[in-house]
């Protein structure tokens, strides 16, 4: 059974978002996504200072099996990326919600997150896929 965290927001394309205390938003992929992808071997994150937009590709995660685009749940400026993933992409598998985060955004409008799925709705989506 996949780990789904109550405090996070989700996309049906299996990204999660967490609002940090400073108002920035951290983006990663879900436990369900890492399990479906299998061993992650490369992660391409956006550059710090670049802009990401909802609905536009913000990065790529590649496993031995497949490549998958990464989408942001909010539009805004990228203020941090998880550089540790360059040398240890397997962290995405072992810790998808904590050490395996992808990038952090200073959102233009935090209200965009209201469009995202909550944990309950995301669980329904992955259960209907299985």
């Amino acid at each position, binding site marked *: 059974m996949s780990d789904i965290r109550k405090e996070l927001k989700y996309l049906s394309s299996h990204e999660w978002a967490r609002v940090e205390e400073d108002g920035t938003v951290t983006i990663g992929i879900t436990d369900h996504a890492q399990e479906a992808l*299998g*061993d992650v*071997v*490369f992660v*391409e994150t956006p550059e710090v200072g670049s802009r990401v937009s909802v609905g536009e590709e913000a990065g*790529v995660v*590649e*496993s*031995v099996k497949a*490549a998958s685009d990464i989408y942001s749940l909010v539009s805004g400026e990228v203020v941090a990326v998880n550089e540790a993933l360059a040398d240890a992409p397997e962290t995405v598998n072992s810790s998808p919600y904590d050490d395996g985060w992808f990038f952090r955004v200073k959102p233009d409008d935090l209200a965009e997150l209201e469009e995202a799925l909550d944990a309950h709705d995301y669980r329904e989506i992955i259960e209907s896929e299985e």
Partner: protein
Amino acid sequence: MGFKTALYNTHQAMGGKLVDFGGWDMPLHYGSQIEEHNYVRQASGMFDVSHMTVVDVKGQDAKAYLQYLLANDVTKIEAVPGKALYSGMLNPEGGVIDDLIVYNMPQDASGAWFRTVVNCGTREKDLAWMNKIAADFKVELIERDDLAMIAIQGPKAINLTKTVVSTNRAEVIDSLKIFQGLPEGEWFIARTGYTGEDGLEIMLPNTEAEAFWKALHTAGVAACGLAARDTLRLEAGMNLYGHEMDDNVSPLAANMGWTVAWAPAERNFIGRSAIEAEKNAGPAFKLVGLVLRERGVMRAEQLVSVDGSEQKGVITSGTFSPTLGYSIALARVPVSIGKQCHVEMRGKHVLVDVVAPNFVRNGKPLI
């Protein structure tokens, strides 16, 4: 729900992620396919390959039948009991119906006979074709679905296997040359594999498979899934049916020219005239290895552009190589290809190196 091997419940109990594979429920991995891959390169791992189809060929025309059915010539193996031969089984147009291993089995009361191992995904068409051709020969084809098959591969595979089998079987294992297999009781033990490492493939009654698997596991052989099997075979430059070749691809375009026995010229095998004409004209395509040393993973079906050729090539298998730490691929490309080419990856043309189609052997990089 698909077909289940004798080890299905064992895979489930050991945490295998079971997926559909050619109609069979097979373990993809038991946690990490990269860890399983590395275990085979460095120590020993085992694979349930019971889904593969074993067909015994018996009867007075067994040899003549296989000489007509296969592009390789079983005459090459008849002097050595148990010797194995890799061959394509071609259609009249010179495409590959399947690739297979044939063993020259020690003679029994029925005389000389052979054991073939064909792919699982091609089982029905293979059996239909083999039976159709058999109509003109005095042969009997016996599918051995009573047998399970376990591949134990890696530098420690043979020694660890010997610790869990009877003295007689350990002696048989010691006697085996590479690419040879011999029966012992109801078992058949072969020094073959699909990983580029030394090791064994053992066929045994379904009823004995679980106990043997568990004994190997207790001895320290890691359970591995088909995902690791695929990255291991690709590093070793071994073809996978449906990828490097199929009914519409010539063995000459699939790095299988070495498996075609052209001599003696009077041996007529199915597909001979088609591929002989292609050989004389000069094949238009060949199979090469590709290497991408930067970030990104080449994938099957991506197109390959070659300088000086209008025709595109195609990646037949691509993956991340756990041993090398970057992406490798096999590709069928115009023969004019040079030392580099471009691969269309996710909307970009990426420059990659062209190498011989094998990357890793016996734990060591070849490039």
